[in-house]
């Protein structure tokens, strides 16, 4: 092995949310002197405001650190990964770029659903795992029990796991030493043909789409002609470099290195996560394993609250998609909402993040429709179609049957909440698979649940029914035939396309009634009585009524001062702008979102 690679350590930190992943990363960066004291701030690798505020990592980041031990200088490449289930694929690619993982477990909370999911991902990628018990400074810390839990549940040797406090810095040195001692240096030969794994990308206004890579074999330098093996696109490398964590150009990236490649790539979609880069002059024949073209799982309509802002929304989506190849969007028209976009997301968090970024970074007021999954519809004429927008579902007479995506769901919970969790899964059409005891009082439950039940309020309900103690994770298992119907909402006798949803027949009645009740709350009184009806096909299954308005008048224009009346009218007129006209009924923007979350 070359001297160069012997001193490289590539690793990720994996953890359940709030177990201290970003804090440990901050400490490592600080203790290796990578970032000057002056530039240190919390969550240094989370560059988006949203990431800092919500304490989550959305985008992968990498940083190179130098650490001296026993007279040798080691190069550490830390790849910071998102922790949420929505980004499981991205995480798996980041893990594949590493030889090892630091597993952070909270000394009081112990193993949670995402700990488990991430450890399994790491094991799948044959990573060496260093367990670390964090937050030992907390009075509720029980490190010895957690060590036992890690050994029993995960089967990892944990007796000498560093017990640390990333917050105070206590014993973090032991983590640095463990990285040197326990993690293997990268394999791979510099002289071999190039294979580099893309684990993320970002868009730079000057350099174009930039690929974050781990070079597995060979080397790459500016001037090389490269090919992305999945997309088959070819480019000439304009720059290679490393992360400190800001991008610093270097002449060559060699086997074992983590860094970036810029090649005047116009579109991030051309540099997909999981793709393999090779050189055209000396290509490899087989790409690295594990590449998947990721497909969005959750869809919703996004419309500007003010119809005149359609072009602004379009520009904003274009900008976000530059940096996010998993965000899909295409124009659609709704009778109720006008011009907008049908957008596809990896999951609910991804959807929330995109919505929030559109509103905050682009100052847009949005109307979003209830999220939907992608249904497979078998038509009587033998054709198959995919439905992402319930409105587009063909007439029942043309449908043979429908299939919906099913998820394998893992819930971890204290055993006292097992009943509550099982009830919830049952209500969500879940099929019980099995149950295991992790330790005396902690249980892991496995269920198969239709994805369309999960995307509404499953997570919120789980949290509220277990007082926040349960954690969950899911992955898509596949499609399954199901008795689904389209539920329509009628306002004053007219169907509102943006409120249609696809539900299981057995749930249609209760959902219809709940939505009608909710709409009654949010639709203001109008000049006339407004009946709200829920219908399947032509059949009305629920009805509510918004009573007609009784009074809407100013008593007086005193002393010729009509400004107050004008102001009131102006305000009402503004208010109406935020309303959508469905037939003769004014519907506030919130109404379309209120069907998202039902209690």
């Amino acid at each position: 092995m070359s001297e160069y690679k012997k001193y490289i350590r590539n690793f990720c930190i994996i953890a359940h949310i709030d177990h201290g992943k970003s804090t440990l990363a901050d400490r490592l960066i600080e203790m290796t002197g990578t970032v000057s004291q002056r530039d240190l701030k919390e969550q240094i690798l989370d560059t988006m405001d949203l990431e800092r505020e919500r304490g989550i990592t959305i985008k992968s980041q990498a940083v190179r650190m130098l650490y001296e031990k026993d007279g040798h200088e080691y190069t550490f490449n830390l790849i910071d990964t998102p922790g949420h289930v929505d980004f499981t694929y991205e995480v798996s690619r980041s893990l594949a770029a590493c030889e090892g993982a630091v597993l952070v477990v909270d000394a009081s909370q112990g193993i949670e659903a995402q700990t488990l999911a991430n450890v399994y991902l790491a094991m799948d990628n044959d990573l060496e795992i260093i367990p670390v018990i964090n937050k030992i400074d907390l009075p509720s810390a029980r490190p010895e029990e957690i060590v036992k839990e890690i050994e029993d549940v995960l089967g990892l040797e944990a007796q000498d796991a560093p017990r640390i406090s990333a917050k105070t810095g206590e014993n973090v040195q032991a983590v640095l030493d463990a990285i040197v001692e326990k993690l293997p240096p990268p394999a791979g030969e510099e002289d071999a043909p190039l294979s580099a794994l893309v684990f993320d990308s970002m868009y730079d206004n000057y350099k174009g789409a930039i690929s974050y890579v781990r070079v597995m074999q060979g080397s790459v330098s500016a001037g090389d002609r490269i090919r992305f093996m999945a997309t088959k696109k070819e480019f000439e490398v304009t720059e290679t470099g490393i992360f400190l964590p800001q991008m610093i150009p270097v002449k060559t990236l060699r086997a074992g290195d983590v860094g970036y490649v810029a090649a005047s790539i116009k579109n991030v979609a051309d540099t997909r996560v999981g793709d393999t880069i090779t050189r055209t002059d000396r290509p490899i024949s087989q790409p690295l394993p594990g590449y998947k073209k990721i497909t969005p799982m959750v869809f919703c309509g996004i419309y500007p609250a003010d119809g005149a802002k359609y072009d602004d929304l379009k520009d904003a989506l274009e900008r976000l998609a530059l940096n996010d190849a998993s965000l899909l969007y295409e124009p659609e028209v709704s009778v109720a909402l006008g011009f907008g976009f049908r957008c596809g997301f990896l999951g609910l968090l991804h959807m929330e993040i995109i919505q929030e970024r559109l509103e905050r970074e682009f100052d847009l007021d949005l109307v979003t429709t209830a999220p939907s999954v992608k249904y497979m519809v078998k038509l009587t004429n033998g054709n198959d179609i995919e439905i992402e927008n319930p409105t587009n579902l063909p007439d029942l007479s043309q449908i043979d049957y429908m299939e919906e995506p099913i998820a394998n769901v893992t819930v971890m919970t204290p055993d006292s909440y097992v009943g509550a969790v099982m009830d919830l899964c049952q209500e969500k059409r879940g099929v019980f698979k099995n149950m295991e005891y992790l330790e005396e009082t902690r249980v892991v439950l496995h269920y198969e649940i239709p994805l369309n039940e999960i995307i509404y309020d499953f997570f919120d309900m789980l949290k509220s029914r277990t007082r926040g103690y349960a954690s969950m994770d899911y992955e898509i298992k596949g499609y399954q035939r199901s008795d689904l119907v389209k539920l329509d909402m009628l306002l004053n006798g007219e169907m509102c396309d943006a409120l249609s949803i696809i539900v299981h027949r057995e749930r249609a009645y209760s959902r219809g009634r709940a939505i009608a009740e909710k709409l009654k709350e949010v639709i203001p009184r109008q000049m006339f009585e407004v009946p709200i009806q829920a219908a399947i096909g032509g059949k009305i299954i629920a009805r509510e009524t918004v009573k007609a308005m009784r009074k809407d008048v100013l008593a007086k224009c005193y002393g010729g001062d009509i400004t107050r009346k004008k102001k009131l009218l102006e305000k009402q007129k503004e208010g109406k702008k935020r309303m959508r006209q469905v037939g003769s009924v004014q519907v506030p923007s919130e109404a379309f979102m209120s069907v998202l979350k039902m209690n």
Partner: protein
Amino acid sequence: MASVYIHVPFCRKKCSYCDFVSFDSAGSRMEDYFLALGKEIEIASELYPMRGVSTVFFGGGTPSFVDEGYIAGAMEALREKLGIQEGAEITLEANPDSITDEKLKAWRQAGVNRLSIGLQSADDALLAISGRLHTEEKFMQAYKMSRAAGFGNINIDLIYSLPGQTAGGFEETLRYVTALAPEHISAYALTLSPGTPLQADVESGRLWVPDEDADREMYHTACALLQKEGYTRYEISNFAKEGYRCAHNLAYWLREDYLGLGAAAHSCVGEVRFSNTPDLEAYISCLTAGKTAYNNRESLDKKQVETEYIMLRLRLSDGIELKEYERLFGRDFERFFSKPIETLKKAGLAEISGGRFFATDRGLDLQNSLVLELIKIPLSEKVNAKR
């Protein structure tokens, strides 16, 4: 035709629901205020020369509270600088607790020929809650004194939807008032304005006000009862016997020119609306220095004039005269608003007959919605036009 409004921003005590510009502890400023007002009349006569005003309205505050000499002085100045037409309607707002024989005599002498007396309610308990200083008995005395002093045109102001008021209770007040047979009755729904003691009491739950249904019951009771007693509802809150509609208030609704003089007073001359500062000291110092005290000035474009026209006309039972609309705005009302008219007719808010477009009873209950229907530009059309 031009009208003048004179604001008298002084009260013995502010009512608990009042958010008008008035001061109950500024008695010492009266002298300076009326000197400033005199100055403003002088300036106004140069800026807006007119051949006599057709209505004058002393509002407040409490015009009856200040020394009658100030009223006489203002009238003198108006007569001298702006001129007052023969047969002009000169109204003064009066509170029962400050009406005296001497004042009544002085007002008559100064030319005041119409009194607007604030009874608000004939229920002493409600009067107390509202922070009014009079009782029903005091009002009765004041009313009789006013008649005896020769006032043949009297308006009685009422407020309904007061805290704890019921439709039955309001009906008693209405019967009490109609028994006196005033020429004019105004009945306003209580408006809870932010920052008033009454609003705070309601917000904190110490008092409750009737809900929308009870409010409408009171209003509809008033409309029916007053009509039976020979009063025509010619505007949402105003009822008059034949020949006694308030010419001054009509000037506002018909968008005729009017000058507002005094602190916080609003004016409308042609296409321009402007108003004086509500700050009493600023008003006094500006005018004392011979400068105007306008704090707001808005030149209306044609669209805004039309919006105002629609909004104000539809407060009147006469509504919009279609011929007049076409003359003023150069297009056929029925054709231009065909879609909203259809919607409004269907919803039972408005009708067209006898060459007029006017609000129905229900349309008057929902006057804002009615107007909005006419003045809004539907969003969807805008988007469609763009694409």
